[in-house]
C-alpha cells in the first residue's frame, strides 16, 4: 500500500482538518490583525503535514497571544492541554517551546510555538494558566530553558544534584548519574509550603 505519511491521521472525532479549516483560517487572520509582526509564521494543515495549525509567536508577546487565545470568545481555547519543548539543535534558535491548546466549546485544538535561543528566558504563562507551573518546571528540568518570573523554578523529575539536562540533544546517550545517598532536604522549600 502506498500511503503518503504526511496525510493527517484522522482522529476519533473525524478529520479535524476539514471540519475546522474555515474556523482556523479566520482565527489566524484575527491573530495577525491583533498582533501583527508578533506572529512570525503560520503553518496550516494540508499544506503543511500537521493535524492542527502551528502558530509561531515572538518570544516577548507569548503571554499576550495566549491570554487572547484563552479569553477572547472568538478563539475560546480555554484549556492548556500540554506545555513542552523540543531541541532543534542545528537551528540558530535552538529550542522550540510548544503550547498545545484545546477549546471545550468548539472541541478543536491549536498549537502555539516559540523559538528560543540557548540561554534566553521565556516569559512564564502562569498568569494565563496556573497549571503551567509544573509543566514549565519540567521543561526547565529536561531542557534547561529558563522562565522569567517563575515563582518556583526547581527541578521536578530529576534528582536536584543532577548535572545537565537529559533531553537535550547534546546530553550523552548513556549519561547515567546514580546517587546512593538520599536527596538533601531543601529547607527553603519546606518553609515555603
Amino acid at each position, binding site marked *: 500500500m502506498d500511503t503518503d505519511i504526511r496525510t493527517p491521521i484522522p482522529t476519533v472525532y473525524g478529520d479535524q482538518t476539514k471540519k475546522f479549516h474555515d474556523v482556523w483560517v479566520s482565527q489566524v487572520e484575527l491573530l495577525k490583525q491583533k498582533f501583527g509582526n508578533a506572529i512570525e509564521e503560520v503553518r496550516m494543515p494540508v499544506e503543511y503535514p500537521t493535524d492542527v495549525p502551528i502558530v509561531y509567536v515572538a518570544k516577548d508577546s507569548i503571554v499576550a497571544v495566549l491570554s487572547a487565545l484563552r479569553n477572547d470568545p472568538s478563539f475560546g481555547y480555554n484549556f492548556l492541554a500540554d506545555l513542552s519543548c523540543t531541541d532543534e539543535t542545528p537551528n540558530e534558535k535552538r529550542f522550540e517551546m510548544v503550547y498545545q491548546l484545546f477549546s471545550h466549546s468548539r472541541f478543536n485544538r491549536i498549537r502555539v510555538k516559540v523559538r528560543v535561543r540557548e540561554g534566553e528566558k521565556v516569559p512564564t504563562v502562569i498568569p494565563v494558566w496556573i497549571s503551567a507551573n509544573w509543566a514549565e518546571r519540567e521543561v526547565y528540568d529536561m531542557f534547561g530553558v529558563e522562565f522569567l518570573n517563575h515563582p518556583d523554578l526547581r527541578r521536578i523529575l530529576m*534528582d536536584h544534584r543532577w548535572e545537565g539536562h537529559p533531553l537535550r540533544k547534546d546530553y550523552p546517550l548513556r549519561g*547515567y548519574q*546514580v*546517587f546512593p545517598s*538520599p536527596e538533601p532536604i531543601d529547607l527553603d522549600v519546606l518553609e515555603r509550603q
Partner: protein
Amino acid sequence: MGKDGTADFFTTRLDVIVNWARKNSAWPLPYGTSCCGIEMMATLCSDYDMARFGAEAVRFSPRQADLLIVAGIITSKMAPVLRNVYDQMSEPKWVMSFGACASSGGIFNVYSVAQGIDTIIPVDIYVPGCPPAPEGVLNGLLRLQQMIDAGATRSQRMEKGLEVPR
C-alpha cells in the same frame, strides 16, 4: 538418656544450627517496583507457595525482614530510597536481584535508570528472566539457602571478619 541406653539428643556446633534456622526463616521484604513484582506475588501465593521454604512471612518493614527481594526497575530517583531501605535492615541480611531490570537495567539503557542494583547495594543472588518464572525464583531461593548453610553470603562473611567480594 533412654532406659535402653539410646540418646535423645545430639551434639552440633552453634553456628550450624543458627544457619539452619536462618536459612529456613528468610522473611522477605518485597520491593516490587514493576511487572516483576506481579511474578513475585505469584511465587508467594498458593500455587508456588514460597512458604514451603520458610519464606512466607512477608514483612513490609525493613527492620523485620532478612531477605530484600528487589523485583523490578530501579530508577536513579529510586536508588537512594533502595539504599535507605537496605541500610535499615538488620544484619544478617540478604539481597535477591529479581529479573533483568534489577540485575542490569534490562532494556532500559537510559539516563534515568540505575544499570543494576549492584551499583547501589551488594547483591547475594541474581535471578535472570524478564520476568523470571516462579520456578526460577524458588531455585534462586534454594541456592540462597545453600549459601546461607555454607556461611557464604556477604552478611555472614562480614560477621566472621572474612573477606567480602565487592
